């Protein structure tokens, strides 16, 4: 579903992502791990078409994000690490706006009700987003991501700011999405969650891929935390 081949992104002299190759198949939850500044967000932004890159290609369902950005973006949803939404809109107006842009029909009503109820946000939908807490904004961003039934969901630190109930619900939704044939590519620092949730994992350091594979291939009998810290130390 998602093929990243030889992705390279430079900021001036600094190579933020260096020749990264990753393939994500339908049904997979793919975790992306690395220390701060390793190149995770840059990779996710490149996949989403938010930034241009210097070399390589990104294919979503076989279509290139650079050649056919609109077709690719229609198939994906992106949730950034810090969801800066439109503060002047109410929650429901924001969701209606997102549904319009993605061409979601009348089914939007049922979807919004279902998702807002699940995240406990229904009562706040008429409130302006400016009055939302960080967690509420995160929940709204998650609902908006699911509204057009994307094939691929890209998430940058999706669990930050969520309460335990919402975190649990999100994990269930991620699993259900992939069981239904979708795929998820997300970055996280919460290694316990990654270990339990991900089918495959990739660890990146200073823009370079250090290791990738199924959870078993990467961690073996150790915990993911031990492997991650070991790899970090090895490459220092």
């Amino acid at each position, binding site marked *: 579903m998602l093929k990243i081949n030889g992705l390279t992104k430079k900021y001036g002299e600094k190579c933020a992502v260096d020749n990264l190759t990753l393939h994500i198949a339908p049904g997979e939850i793919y975790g992306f791990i690395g220390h701060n500044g390793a190149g995770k967000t840059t990779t996710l932004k490149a996949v*989403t*078409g*938010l930034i*241009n890159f210097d070399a390589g290609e990104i294919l979503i369902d076989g279509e290139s994000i650079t050649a056919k*950005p*609109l*077709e690719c*973006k*229609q198939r*994906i949803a*992106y949730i*950034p690490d*810090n969801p*800066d*939404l*439109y503060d*002047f*809109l*109410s929650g*429901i*107006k924001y969701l*209606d*706006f*997102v*549904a*319009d*842009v*993605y*061409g*979601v*029909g*009348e089914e*939007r*009503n049922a979807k*919004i*009700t279902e998702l807002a109820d699940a995240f406990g946000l*229904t*009562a*706040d*939908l*008429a*409130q*302006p987003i400016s009055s939302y807490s960080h967690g509420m904004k995160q929940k709204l961003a998650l609902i908006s991501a699911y509204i057009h039934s994307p094939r691929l969901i890209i998430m940058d630190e999706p669990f930050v700011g969520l309460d335990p109930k919402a975190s649990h619900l999100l994990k269930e939704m991620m699993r259900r999405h992939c069981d239904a044939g979708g795929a998820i590519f997300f970055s996280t620092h919460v290694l316990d969650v990654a270990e339990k949730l991900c089918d495959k994992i990739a660890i990146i350091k200073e823009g370079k891929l250090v290791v990738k594979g199924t959870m078993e291939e990467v961690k073996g009998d150790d915990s993911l935390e031990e492997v991650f810290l070991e790899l970090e130390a090895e490459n220092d």
Partner: protein
Amino acid sequence: MIKRLLTIRLRGAFLSAVGGKDKNGNAKEVSAAKICLYTLLYAFIAVVFFAFVFIMATPLAAVLISNGGETLYFGIFMLLSFTAIFVLSIFETKSELFECKDNDLLLSMPIKPRDIVVSRIFTVLFYNYLTELIIMIPVMISYAMFSGSVIGIFGGIYVTLTLPVIATSLSVGVGYLVHIISEKFARFKNLLVIFLSMGFMLVYFVGYTALMENLEGIIENIDANFEEIAEAFSFVGVIGSVALFKVLPLIIYTLLGGCIAYITLRTVAKNYIRIITRTTKSKRAVYKEKALAKKSPLVALSKKELGRFFSSPTYILNGGLGLVFQIAAAFMIAFGGSDIIQIEAEGMAEDPLLMESLTMMLAPIFIALLVFCQSMVMMSSSALSLEGKSLWILKSMPLKAETVLLSKCMPHLILGCASSLLSGIVVAIGAGVTPAEAMLCITIPLAASVLFAFSGIIINVLFPKFEFVNEAQVVKQSLATFLSMLFNMLVGIMVFIAAIVSMVIGYASVIMLAVLLTLVLADGLMYLIIKGPISKKYSTF
């Protein structure tokens, strides 16, 4: 700490002013040539304003100083600059002091609230000094031309240095009150801020108009009735005597000014944390589920843009005030047009040919006036920058760049065209113009609205500013807004020139038709630029 905070703010302002920041607000290297180019541009604007004040000040200096009315001369311009600074900076101080996004960050650091307050007031004061210099330098030059008094020169310098401090302190105090009132009535906050702003501006314009009328009277009757005039304006004279170092007024002025500055600073600094961390109780909106209908992306985006515009008093006041001016001007023309004809008839009756030309010229002048008012509408020039940190939403959506940019123009197009249409119809019906002129009264302002909307977004894409601590920095102080204002003014002036040319050589309808065609062609060209290179540029953000 104050010095450090102030340096950061002024450096940020300088870099923004000379294009030394990238689209994310990060400092980037800026060449000497670029700094020179921007300096020349600002110098040009300053010279235009200098010239305007100089033209106003020189005849006054000539008549007042020769009649011994130096205090009246200084008094008039001290009042003028004081009011300009006070009115223009009330809402600036409100957003700079109480609505900055970095308040939380700064308060979490070991910085005294007083230092934060002082650094922010100094930033406003810096801009106010620029306003003061633009007014007082030509005033002082005019003064020096007609009087060699060294005391007056030093007095003028003293006033130039101290008056902005007093005006800024007062505007901070009023800005503080406006903030408290608007927070107390949070539900009607936007409406309240708009009404208060309009009220202040109305008072300023009424005061300014009255002053100008009085000035004309002073100049005309100065020789005959100087004593009477001096007596009638004795209060203004007392104010002006500060600039001539008259002991008692000087002491009162200095002490009063000092007290105002001290009390304001102390009050705001003491209550700063409480003011900006206050949570207001507003009635909670209840969500009622109702069916949502599908709309096209362009309609959805345009609705969102209109929502942004109407949610921000700063945006409405700085971007949309021209709409009010245009409609007001149209009604004034419609109901006062016959007066203008009457005035001309009185003045020019002895020259029937000139009289005929002037009557024929009325429609072009009306059109030029409507276009000039429309040129003050600057909504699209900050529409993209206002996306700020939420730009990721649009960039991650399956939207054509062209659709996004057109939606950014929509509030400007919808409201600007509605205002132009209404104004054109009012003038066409009320001013008694011919059917052909009526069509031009409607279509030329309409074409100009489209041009201003399109050019605004083009300039904004070329000079975006996505990092800001309050909306005023984008809507009011950004380079895109500044350049857009300049462009719009040039178009407005060109239409005025065309109207004047039509008076000199005749063929008013033909010339104004040519203006219409030029504007329509420019609209088409701007649209193609948006579709082509500007959409491409947007894709790189």
